[in-house]
């Protein structure tokens, strides 16, 4: 009975055609990651003042490579992986097929959008970095491509909601299975969060790049970008939380404790969307009062992550104790460290603790003046998205690829080595960037040719280069293992998604069933968004053009 409420227990397999769409999402995401990682190597080494970008084919400048790195890894990979992975978990938990038309449309929109953006970036017509701040101007194919990638995520959300609606009709009065609840909540959060970037691109930047409007308001566009630019972090993270809450307890031999606490944590991410101004703490034109309010909301959104730390660690402890671990910390060594999928994700969790703490420092209002736009910032987010998320993707792939291919993982030992190598590599890399950032080393700057520098940046720069190189080696090992699993893994029987059970099952009476009514939380979230952003946006309307664009300066 208890498992029924995490996921339909009687066994369900998606039709092969639908599984193939999911498979191509995931593989496309990893292919894109490979390109992004190759670019990343050049950037890491440039901090050590080693220029290998000059030998790269197609890429002609550091900033072109950095644009490709950021857009592919942070937007295309994350969208592709979330689309594939959370469609699978939704379908499996509800034991329902998905809508075929939406599934096909999602995949093709993602592919076409990515190709358009790739064309613009590879041809050097969009070296505007991942943030594409106007009035730096890119070729229109860049903006159209990004818009299509975002639209593909909306189609994924639609496919989930269609399945949920049909499931509800057949199961009146029942609680939504937890695995589906988490997956759908993630996308509902993103549906609201992505409105900022969608308006920025579709209403302003795309018509501007096509010459239909003469100028843009850089302050307004930047604010719309960061409206999405912070909660996009949740969109990277929550698919990983789905794995940490919903799958890892089972993989580690344990069980998730509380269904209700898990649902509350996910709902809080929907409620606390408008925090983007904390990326604009040192911007002019935003009042200190608003900045402090945003700092407070940002601290509040740290809370569901602390809930996660408790719940997931407890689930791991149950697993460790069941496997014979004892004492205050003894259980930690008894969790299945020999399983690369578990090991990679537990290491990712450790990285996320450091990432979370360094992020809290970024968000700390006046402290931000010490580190804003220094190398500290990429030091922080390579611990979060670059390790907690990326290493979890790899860990998930270590069961997901065998599951999709019906083959065994190609080399368990190499996969384990890969995960540990990646973890330690990021520790060196991020330590370098953070140390440099605290000494004022800027981010997004080609240090090979920089006409200035401080002696204190030298050793941090070398650490960044060494750590980044090791990350590159580890990522290449991952791709090698993945490809070998697909072509040469030992064939096995069809498996299942490893979903967990919960100790405390979701009550059917009381206040808890209302957690499943996402529309309440969406409405509350929209009210908060309007309260925070409404006055600021009204202050920039009607649009008074401030400046024309600069096409690829």
């Amino acid at each position: 009975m208890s498992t029924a409420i995490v996921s339909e227990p009687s066994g369900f397999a998606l039709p092969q055609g639908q599984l193939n769409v999911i498979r191509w999402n995931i593989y496309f995401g990893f292919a894109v990651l490979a390109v992004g990682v190759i670019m990343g190597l050049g950037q890491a080494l440039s901090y050590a003042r080693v220029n290998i970008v000059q030998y790269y084919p197609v890429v002609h400048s550091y900033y072109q490579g950095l644009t490709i790195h950021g857009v592919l890894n942070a937007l295309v990979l994350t969208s592709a992986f979330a689309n594939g992975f959370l469609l699978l978990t939704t379908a499996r938990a509800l034991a329902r097929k998905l809508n075929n038309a939406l599934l096909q449309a999602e995949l093709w929109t993602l592919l076409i959008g990515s190709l358009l953006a790739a064309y613009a970036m590879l041809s050097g017509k969009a070296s505007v970095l991942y943030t594409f701040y106007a009035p730096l101007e890119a070729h229109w194919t860049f903006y159209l491509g990004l818009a299509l990638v975002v639209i593909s995520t909306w189609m994924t959300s639609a496919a989930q909601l269609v399945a949920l609606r049909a499931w509800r009709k057949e199961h009146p009065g029942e609680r939504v299975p937890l695995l589906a609840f988490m997956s759908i909540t993630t996308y509902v959060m993103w549906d609201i969060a992505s409105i900022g970037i969608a308006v920025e691109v579709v209403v302003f930047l795309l018509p501007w790049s096509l010459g239909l409007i003469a100028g843009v308001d850089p302050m307004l566009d930047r604010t719309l970008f960061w409206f999405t630019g912070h909660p996009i972090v949740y969109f990277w993270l929550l698919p990983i939380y789905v794995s940490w809450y919903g799958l890892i307890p089972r993989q580690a031999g344990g069980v998730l404790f509380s269904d209700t606490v898990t649902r509350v944590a996910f709902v809080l991410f929907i409620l606390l969307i408008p925090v983007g101004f904390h990326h604009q703490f040192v911007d002019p034109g935003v009042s200190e009062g608003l900045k402090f309010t945003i700092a407070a909301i940002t601290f509040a959104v740290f809370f569901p992550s602390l809930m996660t730390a408790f719940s997931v660690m407890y689930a791991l402890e149950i697993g460790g104790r069941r496997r014979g671990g004892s004492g205050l910390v003894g259980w930690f060594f008894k969790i299945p460290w020999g399983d690369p999928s578990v090991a990679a994700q537990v290491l990712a969790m450790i990285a996320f603790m450091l990432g979370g703490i360094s992020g809290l420092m970024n968000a700390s209002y006046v402290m931000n003046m010490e580190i804003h736009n220094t190398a500290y910032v990429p030091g922080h987010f390579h611990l979060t998205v670059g390790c907690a998320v990326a290493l979890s993707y790899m860990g998930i792939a270590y069961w997901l690829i065998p599951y999709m291919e019906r083959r065994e993982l190609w080399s368990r030992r190499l996969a384990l080595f890969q995960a540990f190598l990646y973890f330690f590599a990021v520790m060196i890399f991020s330590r370098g960037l953070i140390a440099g950032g605290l000494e004022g080393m800027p981010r997004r700057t080609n240090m090979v040719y920089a006409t200035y520098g401080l002696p204190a940046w030298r050793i941090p720069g070398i650490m960044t280069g060494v750590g980044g190189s090791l990350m590159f080696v580890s990522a290449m090992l991952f791709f090698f293992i993945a490809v070998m699993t697909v072509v040469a893994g030992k064939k096995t029987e069809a498996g299942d998604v490893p979903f967990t059970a919960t100790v405390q099952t979701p009550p059917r009476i009381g206040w808890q069933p209302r957690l499943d009514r996402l529309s309440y939380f969406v409405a509350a979230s929209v009210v908060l968004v309007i309260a925070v952003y409404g006055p600021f946006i009204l202050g920039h309307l009607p649009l008074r053009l401030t400046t024309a664009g600069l096409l690829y300066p």
Partner: protein
Amino acid sequence: MERYEKAFLAACAAVLVLFLCALGYSNLVLGAHLPSHDERVYCSAGQKLRKVLLKTPPFDHIGVREIAPGKYEAVLIAQIWLFTPDEIDLPVGAEVKFVATSADVIHGFFIPGTRVNMMLIPGQVSEFDYRFTKPGEYLLICHEYCGRLHHTMSGKVVVK
């Protein structure tokens, strides 16, 4: 919820509230302020922002000037890929108000080793007050990507 869980979450909430109070204290009592000046320079289609700026006070008088005994105002314009002026001379201990903006794309204004860290956004005027208590030569760098020679955009502050 379980007892341990409640205790853990209460402790977490308490720590976060404490941090927030510390930030409020640094801001309201110790006077650590973020650059939040709100003043806009509009430029309609067909006009060049740089030309509009040079006719708009205080950017019609770029450079450093003493506005009261021991108080200075340093007015700068950033554009690809330079600051004008690119050197600012100040006496030790003087209070200085940096007033800066951008004439083209978004730039950064950052003096490593100090709290002077602000974004320069076309159409918006940025301001920040600071007091240099140690003599020396400080780097002034653009720390927001602004085009292919971004890494050459720097200046210096000389405090004697």
